[in-house]
């Protein structure tokens, strides 16, 4: 319904730093580790630095909860609302409600289709998927696998980002399947990104293929770890490349151990800082310009956007993540990993 451009910036005007208050709703803590460990931290730092009031909450994957939190934030007087939607429907409902109450809005990490947010700040999720696909191809090539059978373990089918990731890596893998270079193996979604279920699902893939799986496209590090634990049980770890995402400590350790082939590092600090910058501006009644836009096909409008590029991490580049401060050496290089860290040049 609401499709007009939101460039006017009429909302939030007339407020000063004292009453500026920013609400942030994070989606969950199951689909990825980042929300609670990274985003919350960086956003808090940025807001504190700017001296604005803020309220960051997590909807725990519950849409009703998501809307409730939004209602509560609007009630408690935020003038900028930044959301990571759980789906476009509730996202749109929240954005529209906020707009009708004169609250400025930002789509963080996920675009709300048909929504009314002033800005969109994100990594390119399709690009993330592409990196995963390319990473897997790279590993399979170095391992010199002929006509490898590739299994795909997608994220939650109910998460739109999972669909975007899949779109990305399928764009790399599909041509290989059609050309006959690769053999398409089992391809399943993991409900709720649940790692335990992922283990069973992969174990059954392996059983069904009688062990003939040569590469696994796992959508994030948690799923990757579930795959690796099954491979370990069959002493196949290290022999079958597995992908990941999020550059978690666990994923990086698996990479160092040689069990995981790559992960995707999204410099969340950059994303958080960019979003915080825009939010603080809106809260203070300033209107900042962005260079990029993203087309919202549902709302038929170009959303002013800040898009950041993800980065593939392999054994060689693990040190970059530490250097970035995304994970600390102390948490990464525990126990046996100390030596591996040194080998990989982590300092």
């Amino acid at each position, binding site marked *: 319904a609401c499709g007009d451009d939101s460039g006017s910036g009429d909302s939030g005007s007339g407020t000063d730093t004292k009453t500026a208050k920013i609400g942030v709703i994070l989606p969950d803590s199951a689909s990825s580790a980042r929300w*609670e460990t990274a985003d919350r931290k960086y956003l808090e730092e940025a807001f504190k630095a700017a001296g604005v009031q803020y309220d960051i909450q997590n909807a725990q994957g519950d849409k009703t*909860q998501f809307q409730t939190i939004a*209602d509560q934030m609007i*009630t408690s007087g935020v003038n900028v609302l930044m959301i990571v939607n759980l789906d476009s*429907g509730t996202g749109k409902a929240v954005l529209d409600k906020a707009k009708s109450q004169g609250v400025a809005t930002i789509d963080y990490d996920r675009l709300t289709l048909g929504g009314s947010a002033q800005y969109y700040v994100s990594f390119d999720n399709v690009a993330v998927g592409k990196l995963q696909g390319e990473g897997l191809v790279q590993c399979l090539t170095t391992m010199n696998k002929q006509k490898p059978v590739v299994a795909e373990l997608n994220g939650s089918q109910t998460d739109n980002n999972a669909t975007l990731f899949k779109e990305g890596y399928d764009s790399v893998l599909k041509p290989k399947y059609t050309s006959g270079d690769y053999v398409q193996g089992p391809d399943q979604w993991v409900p709720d990104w649940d790692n335990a279920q992922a283990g069973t699902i992969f174990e059954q893939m392996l059983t069904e293929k009688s062990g003939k799986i040569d590469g696994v496209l796992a959508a994030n590090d948690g799923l990757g770890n579930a795959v690796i634990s099954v491979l370990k049980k069959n002493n196949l770890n290290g022999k079958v490349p597995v992908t990941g995402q999020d550059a978690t400590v666990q994923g990086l350790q698996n990479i160092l151990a040689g069990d995981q082939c790559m992960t995707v590092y999204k410099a969340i600090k950059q994303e958080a800082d960019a979003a915080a910058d825009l939010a603080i501006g809106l809260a203070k009644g300033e209107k900042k310009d962005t260079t990029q836009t993203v087309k919202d096909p549902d709302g038929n409008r170009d959303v002013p956007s800040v898009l950041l590029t993800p980065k593939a991490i392999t054994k060689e580049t693990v040190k970059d993540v530490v250097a970035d401060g995304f994970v600390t050496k102390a948490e990464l290089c525990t126990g046996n990993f100390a030596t591996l860290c040194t080998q990989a040049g982590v300092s």
Partner: protein
Amino acid sequence: MTTTAHHIEPVAVAPKPTVGSHIRDYLSRVGGGDLGALPAVLGLIVLCVFFAIMKPVFFSAGNFANLFTQGAAVTIIAMGLIFVLLLGEIDLSAGFASGVCAAILAQLMAEQGAPWYLAVLAAIVTGVVIGLVLGFLVAKVGIPSFVVTLAGFLAFQGTVLLLIKGGTNVSIRDDVILAIANKNIVPWLGWVLTIIGIAGYAAVVLLSRRRRAARGLVTEPLAVAVGRIAALAVILGIAVFVLNQERSRNVVVVSLKGVPIVVPIIAALLIIWTFILRRTAYGRHIYAVGGNREAARRAGISVDRIRISVFVICSGMAAIGGIVAASRANSVDANTGGSNVLLYAVGAAVIGGTSLFGGKGRVLDALLGGAVIAVIDNGMGLMGLSSGQKFVFTGVVLLLAAGVDALSRRRAAATGTR
């Protein structure tokens, strides 16, 4: 057998009760543990005071309106669940059944372009059919309801996914459907409905009093009857007054006042189902089957039919709940009716005082328990805790609210009545 000296006296002669005796009676009943809705109401008050102290904004008109729309879907589903629980059965699938119905609604409108009334009809019919199937499997095939509805829980979860074709979500654009959970009725209409409600209640109370008096049965004193009516009028009046306040943050942009549309919907459902449970033979039979299935069977009640019917009611209400949820979310996706919806709905019923073992419960319980859960959710949303803290806190607060209830009922048990 010696049967001397027995004289048939009239069972006893009761003096006409007075206001004083009535109040004394009530106090002694409460003292003796017959608490009715008191503990749930008490728990609710404690919660509200707590949140109001922690976050004064909790007590704003805007937040009051939020409460209703936030708790509506769970409360409606809980109302349906009451019927299943009254028989000592359970329906784990009610949450996702609401999802299936919502998905049908959304798809019919989005893909077939069906008008809203057809879509609503289709959703409710779907709910009824689901209930028929579940009820048949429980009553006629004899599979325990926990297993049947666990299977339903899984199957409907899948059905939603299939209906909305994977991870996308289907937007709802129809204004009528969207209005349900997002719009308010104009202030004057709120007052009109309130007055109709109070007048209706007064008519029922006074008429049934007159009918009893005509038969020479004991009646409550007129003053007490009038008191009840007045109490209802005051509560409704205050609520409507508050909801009719302006609650827009920016009046220039938009004016926001009036009773949310879901409120009269819930009120209507409450009245209808309470009437059916309390005043019809069917409702009586539900209690009988829940209290003692064998006794009900021996009394000639068609137990199977009752068992099937409650599942139909439950799934039908789930369909309505699903429509409200879809309206509130402006969309339907694979999670509609999922996550905590079911547990919250059953929890609402149980907190309200409905027993999981059957035979004991009222539709009003769903409302009271739903209010407790909505208040906790709402208040917690204002506190700004991290998600871990929030879960822990919600659990603890829920426990405290239930503890008020339990401790007051314990006093009852101690006096021997339960």
